[in-house]
Each structure stands twice: as C-alpha cells, then as structure tokens.
C-alpha cells in the first residue's frame, strides 16, 4: 500500500517535471521592445500613486514569462516594459522612490535585482 502510494508520488513528480521541460523549449525569443517614449506617464498621477506596484508586477510577469515587452497605454502610445521607462523621467530625483517608501515603511523587492536610483553613480 505504502509502496504503491510512494510510486504514484514519484511518477507524478517525474511527469510534472517532464511536462515543464518540454514546455520550456517552446518559449519564444523575447519580442523586440518598443521605443522608450517618456514624454508622459502611462496613467494619471492618482492612479499611479495607488497602483504603480501592480503595473510593475504585471510588467514583470508578462515580460519575463510571455516575452511581451510592449505596454500599450490607454491613449495608444507604446512603452517599453522596463524600469528605465519610469526612471527616464523620475530619475531626476534620486529619492523619487525612497521618499514615499521610507515614509510609509514599505520595502519593495525591486532592488533585490535592479540597481536602485539611489545606488546608481
């Protein structure tokens, strides 16, 4: 009984990983990114204040997992899904992110991988 259960678990595990590997080969090459258009923000200030973390999270998922690097703003402009698109405007203040994040005591995990504007030379 135990042996049978163990066998099922092992087989299921093997199948799960096999499945993943065969999927991995099909992932398309990253799509060409859109030109960085930083003439205006992708949404209103009020929306971005409350929802910027969701936009960035959505960008991260769709660009890393689906290779879709082009964000289409409501007004039709195409924007590269990259932190650089944001920082093109917002890097004029090195404390742009940190002012509010320190005040609200929220630690984003962006800078676990990306170089933060505060660390940038």
């Amino acid at each position: 009984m135990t042996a049978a259960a163990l066998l099922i678990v092992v087989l299921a595990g093997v199948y799960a990983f096999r499945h993943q590997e065969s999927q991995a080969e099909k992932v398309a090459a990253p799509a060409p990114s859109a030109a960085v258009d930083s003439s205006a923000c992708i949404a209103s200030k009020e929306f971005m204040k409350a929802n910027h973390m969701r936009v960035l999270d959505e960008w991260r998922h769709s660009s890393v997992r689906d290779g879709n690097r082009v964000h289409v703003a409501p007004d039709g402009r195409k924007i590269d899904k990259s932190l650089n698109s944001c920082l093109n405007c917002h890097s004029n203040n090195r404390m742009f992110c940190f002012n509010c994040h320190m005040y609200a005591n929220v630690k984003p995990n962006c800078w676990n991988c990306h170089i933060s504007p505060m660390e940038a030379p």
Partner: protein
Amino acid sequence: MKKIMLPLAMVAVLALVPFIGVQYAGLDYLFGVVIPYAAAALFMAGFVYRMVDWLRRPVPYNITSTCGQEKSLDWIKQDRIESPSKPWHAAVRVLSEVLLFRSLFRNNKAEFRNGPDLAYGSSKWLWLGGLVFHWSMLVIVVRHARFFFAMPPGFVDVLDQMDSFFDITLPAFYITDALVLLAITFLFVRRMADAKMRIISLPTDYFPLFLLGGIVGAGVLMRYIAKVDVMPVKDQMLRLMSFSFDPPGEIGALFYVHLFLVCVLLLYFPFSKLMHMGAIFLSPTRTMLNNSREKMHVNPWRQPMKIRTYAEYEDDYREKMKKAKLPLEKE
C-alpha cells in the same frame, strides 16, 4: 435567526454610515479626526474604569484550584504551575493562559455517540481557532505601527517581513490576513454548527465577530483590491498621534469605513465581553496562590460573634422550665 441577523445588520449599517458620510456628505473631518479622538478617549477611560472597578472588589477568600498538587509536606511533589505557592509560579500560570490559552486546551466535549452512552472527548478546535485568531490579531495590530510612527521600531519590520514571507502578490500577501479571516469564519461556524451552541449564543457573541470581520474585510479590500493611497493615510495617523486637529487629506471612503469600524470597536470594548483582554490578568483562580495549607487565611470581614451557650440559656430560664416540667441538664 434574529440574533444573528440583528448584529449583522448593525455592522452593515455601521459600515455604510462613514461611506455615505464621506462619499456624499464630505464629513472627512468628523470621521477622520473627531470620532477617532472621541473613541480613543472613551476606550481608555472606559478600560481604566472597568479595571479599577474590578481591582477595588474585595477577594476575601483564598480560592484553591484543585487540578494540581498543592505545596504541603516536603516529600509530596508540588505542581508549581497548577498549584502555585510563589508569585512567579502564579505569573507563569497567568501568562500561559494569556499566551497559550491553557485552560481552553483542556476543553472537553460531551456527546451521544452510538446510542444512549454519553461520551466525553478532548476538543481542541476552539483552542486552535481562538489561538490563531488572537495571535493573528496581535500581529496585525503590531504591523499597523508603520502607520502610527514615523520610524516604527525594528521588530515591526521583522514581523512584517515574516508575515509577508511567501512574497506572493503585490502588495505582498500577509499570512495573518488569511489566518484571521479563516479563524473568524471558524468561530462563527462553530456557533452555528451545533444546536447547543446556537441556543446559548447571543447577539453580543456574534456582534464582535461580525465587527472584526468587517474591519479585516475593509482592510484587506483596501490593501489588495480597491487600492487606497497610503500617503495621506499615514499623514493622518501621524497627525492623530501628535494630537493635531488639522483636517485629513484626500483619502478613499473605504479607509473611513475601516477607521470608523475600528472606532466602533474601541467604543464597544469597555462595555462588552471584549474586556476579557484586561480581566484575564485579574482572574482570581489564575492569579491567587494556592497556599491555603501553608498560610492561615482569615476572612477580613469576620465580625466578632456574640455567642450564647445552652448552659447560659438554661441559667436564664431555669425556674420557668422547672415549672413547665421541662428536662434540665443542671438542677
């Protein structure tokens, strides 16, 4: 059913009041400044009043709890926690009750199982549900320090990181948010599922559950779904902490629902069974020492009694009793 629907309707109305007040009547100042101050003041005054009232009540007798061996002769092993003889033993007993709900752990359930035999069994579900609920609430309240202090102490950050350990969703999902909702649901279902529990449950048992559910619901909604700008919220909380009466900034109505329900909870607290938060520390069967064999306890109210013996009685009435031919002890 009425005793469930009534508190539910009350909480629904209480949640609608600030929503309508802020959204349509622009009463930000009332719900963001006046009511929070009033609720905090009444909470503190009421809490202190209830505690002082209880502390002034005399406890004349030494109540010995009987679930552990009391200290007596040297060769009899004492159960220090169940039957404390030193203040620190009693402190451990109180703290184990406060932090681990020790007495609930001993909860038993009696039910008819297989016919007419009454079966008793250990029932730990209430203990588990209560423990999960209270600890989650504590973590959530401590986490909120990030709104009340410009620089919250370090352990708040540590707690926050542990709580968002899974690092899924953005803003990061808090484990305690899910646990507290599960626990509230369980505590409600527990009262509903059993006929005996349904009978002894009162509106005052359901109201705090629904109220806390409403507070957590509004908070969760604000964090994960209908986003509210955090900056003016923190501004307002820091203002309240520094006793400022400046008007709040532009904050979504959902925040005021959350805040107002918290104010209702604070107001309701001193007048309700929620006072068990303070009362647990005064509970005589937890705080008193079981030293009735070690020390003589005399009721401080005992009045010197006037005693009249039968001999004295007979002395007074001897002649009359003799005449009535009643038997006498002394001729």
